[in-house]
């Protein structure tokens, strides 16, 4: 197995605060890797850096060998790396189906002006909505969905672009246990189809249940990594959580 995503010595300062202090790790192709760590350890900043929402001060991020740290979010998405947000983000005034179709509007402006969405794209969008069990809400404004449904919609939206790597920011945050199980199931299913996952999550049961590898961050650095079992036994991890 080779690394699909490589983070190498990434640093980012916000004012006097060093959010990332030389962060290095790799995500292996085909894995479900989780990123854990106490609050303020830099997980979300790292996510934002990898996906182009924040430009690192130093260091490299590479996707399959290609450096992406200087690209804008839409370019990074084009290269097969998608993400969800901690606060679920959908286009609330578009319908559920349109939410999924937006991701297909990645053609150039001129082409996009001349082209309508094709039936095949609509079919595919419906397939994705079916996959996350919200197909029957296709024509409803997305803003009126329940929180869990919005999370599922967000995942469906991201899948349109056929990303090879998916970054999920707290997929299990704020949803009920049944929905959490449902989401975990979807992640595993997608992983079996070949999508690599990097997941930030606080729900330890969830993390230990789905991850192949776990990366632990504290104070802007990676302090431990390994299989769920190894990480669980690592004294440094406990220390980081207790010390925080």
């Amino acid at each position, binding site marked *: 197995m080779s690394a699909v995503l490589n983070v190498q010595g990434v640093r980012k300062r916000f004012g006097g605060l060093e959010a990332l202090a030389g962060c290095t790790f790799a995500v292996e192709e085909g894995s479900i890797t989780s990123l854990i760590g106490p609050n303020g350890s830099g997980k979300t900043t790292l996510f934002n850096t990898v996906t182009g929402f924040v430009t690192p001060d130093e260091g490299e991020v590479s996707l399959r060998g290609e450096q992406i740290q200087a690209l804008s979010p*839409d370019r990074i998405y084009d290269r097969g790396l998608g993400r969800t947000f901690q606060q679920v983000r959908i286009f609330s005034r578009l319908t559920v189906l349109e939410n999924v179709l*937006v*991701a297909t*509007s990645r*053609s150039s402006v001129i082409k996009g002006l001349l*082209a*309508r969405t094709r039936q095949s794209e609509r079919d595919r969008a419906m397939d*994705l909505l079916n996959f996350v*069990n919200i197909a029957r809400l296709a024509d409803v404004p997305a803003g009126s969905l329940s929180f869990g449904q919005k999370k599922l919609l967000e995942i469906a939206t991201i899948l349109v672009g056929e990303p090879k790597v998916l970054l999920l920011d707290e997929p299990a945050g704020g949803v009920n246990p049944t929905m959490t199980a449902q989401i975990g199931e979807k992640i595993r*299913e997608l992983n079996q189809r070949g999508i690599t996952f990097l997941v930030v999550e606080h729900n330890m049961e969830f993390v230990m249940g789905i991850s192949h590898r776990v990366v632990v961050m504290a104070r802007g650095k990676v302090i431990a990594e390994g299989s769920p079992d190894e990480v669980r036994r690592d004294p440094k991890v406990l220390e980081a959580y207790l010390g925080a």
Partner: protein
Amino acid sequence: MKRNRMGLIALIAVVAAVVYPFVFSSTEATTIVFYALLYVAIASSWNIIGGFTGYISLGHAAFFGLGAYTIALVADHLGIPGGYGLFLVALLGGVVAALFAVPMGFIALRLRTIHSFVIVTIAYLFMFQLLAFNLLGVTNGSSGLAIPQPNWSGAFFNMPFYFAALVLAVLTVLLAYWIRNSRFGLGLLAIRDDEDKAAGVGVDTWKHKFAAYIISAVPIGIAGAIYAYFSSYIYPQTVFDPMIDLTIVLSAFLGGMGTLLGPILGAFILQPAQQLLTFYTGAAGWDLVLFGVLFLVVILLMPSGIVPTIVERTRRARVREAVQKADETVPTPDANPAAGGGPR
């Protein structure tokens, strides 16, 4: 089925607009609807950037004025007499507006915030007004410019203008309709809801906004030229007029920003209302007060505009039921239709 019905209604509306001046042929009757149609075009094209993306331009009157000065200057310098030919020159107003929109859009959209966009666009309007006042050699300053008039007489005089405005309105609404249903339009609407998220799913937000800005300048430029031709004389303060922007925004807003029907409805309510208001209140001052009060009442009572409010009311109950029902079924893992899902 629903689409067919909408198409039928649109067709009836257009036929009604075509028949109207033959039934009500007085100058007053055609003038009022002429202005309403002109504003349908203006508000609908403004809606492409302002309504679809949420980037509210308060400077689109700059394009209106550019179109107006284009027709006046071209007619003057090329010695084109009044007549049907000048309507072709009006099209040039759209071209000029688009040419100016390129650098203007580039600068106004450089900072990715709506606030700074709003202010920069306001500044554009005042800059053009100042230019029109100051470039005496070109614009004749505050003395204004005349546009050659056709020798049509009596009640017929309004007819060509009426139909020019009608054609422009229909084409602009079709343009907006086309964009709304294109992939490009979907990108614009996504920007309105959450610009960064749109970028996150691969929408090139900057190019989308830039293109929308330029496109939206064209019909307004043409409208400005038709207006100038119709009113026969233009001044810096009448064509680079902030009130034009206010009227545009209010029309779009009143009907429902970002909807196709909204600006049409808004223009047809607001234009006649404004004309009557100015006509009956007489004293300058009361019209402003009434206009402002009307404005406030509408915003506070109907913050999303007429069309969305109606749509929302009729569909709310139905949606709520559907969402609840779906929510009940989603969490049960057995109910998963698993489209193309792998083995579990």
